[in-house]
């Protein structure tokens, strides 16, 4: 399964939304995920992929799900390189 598919599933499950509504260009804010819910989504992603996402990569207001997925892939690549 791709990072995108796994990330979409985590977001859909945590936010209790239909996975079909999630697009790479959506922001978490667009999806109605704010405040602590957004922080929990990031936590679930970190636990699932066993990566650490810096605060710079988790802009809930303006960052898109696509950018989040790129950040996850960067951390996975850094981990396997390290």
């Amino acid at each position, binding site marked *: 399964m791709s990072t995108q598919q796994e990330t979409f599933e985590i977001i859909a499950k945590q936010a209790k939304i239909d996975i079909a509504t999630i697009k790479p260009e959506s922001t978490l804010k667009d999806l109605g995920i704010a*405040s*602590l819910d957004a922080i929990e989504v*990031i*936590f679930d992603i970190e636990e699932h992929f066993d990566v650490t996402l*810096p605060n710079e990569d*988790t802009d809930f*207001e303006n960052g898109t799900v696509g950018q989040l997925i790129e950040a996850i892939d960067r951390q996975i690549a850094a981990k396997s390189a390290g």
Partner: protein
Amino acid sequence: MRRIVITGMGAINALGNDAASTWAGMVAGRSGIGPIERVPAEQLRMGNVVAEIKGFDPVARLGERAAMMDLAGQYAVVAADEAIAQAGIRFDGENGARTAVVVGTGASGEATRDDQYRRLYADNASRLHPLGIVKMMINASASHISMAHGITGPTFVVASACASSNHAFAQAAMMIRAGLVDAAIAGGTEACITLGTMRAWEAMRVLAPEIRPFSAGRRGIVLGEGAAMFVLETLEHAQARGAMILAELAGAGMSSDAGDIAAPSADGAAAAMRAALRDGELAAEEVGYINAHGTGTQANDSTETRALHQVFGAHARKLAVSSTKPMHGHALGAAGAFELIATIGALREGVIPPTLNYHEPDPACDLDYVPNVAREQAVTAAISNSFAFGGLNAVVALKRWV
């Protein structure tokens, strides 16, 4: 109604180990924030800067009783001793029973808890230190202040996270007004710089490498620690003693958002500010300075700005609004107590402490935040805001004493 005045203050924090050096630091626009020393920085992801207290020797200041106290208790007693000495108030005879102690604190006991649990879970220690409970209990700081000075009136802590100190001032003022007591030692204490606490704040993604309240690009808070304590008493009591009056505590306002456990509400904040003005019988136009909660998070600073517009209307544009947190850090339960020093200083000396690290304007924060440099400006009335996680708001209103 009994009028309440402030006749003593004491403090210990990253700006200085007494109230005078704390205020001097605020006027100079100095920051006590720096790389963390208490916790190894490599064990932290984002929270590697804090406003730590330096050069504090608990045994030199407190003697053998220091060993009975968590850091939060030590800070509280040191600050209370200073405030009581400045006020010159005595607690002999009936006076002890006619005085209250109300300490605001969010958690207290963190260093003791961290140490005990590390011994238990990491070191597999077979026994724990017997003083763990009396050090970590949240009420210990209030108890130690009462023990140190023979104060036998109502004594307790109030906890409302980052609004604890302001709730403590409000509670103390209500007891004085009701005639239960004639004086109170009130303030706040916190000692939250431990590995466990820092990691918990990191996980919430609110710690930032720099705190820049109301500025574009702000990313969150920097933690601080310490205590500040004040002597409150009725005007009559202070005048009978010939005490020097620092300021009048005109009123207090409190509210609960009854909304989100973390996200702030402009309506809740505005309700507390309005209640403080009403309680202090102050017209919005009389207020010249707002010591803002100003945590440096995206949500707080824009929400607080909206609340100020709601409460002050057109007068909001004339207010000087500053957050002193870039200087002393966000000390959670002690925050409002540090900020009362800023508020009293502004009233007494006509100097508004600045908002440091203000880099560029944010359209959502469109007031006068006294950026980066203190300003000489006479103020006759001021309010100090504290808005806690959990939606608990407390605001105090002060008037200049002339």
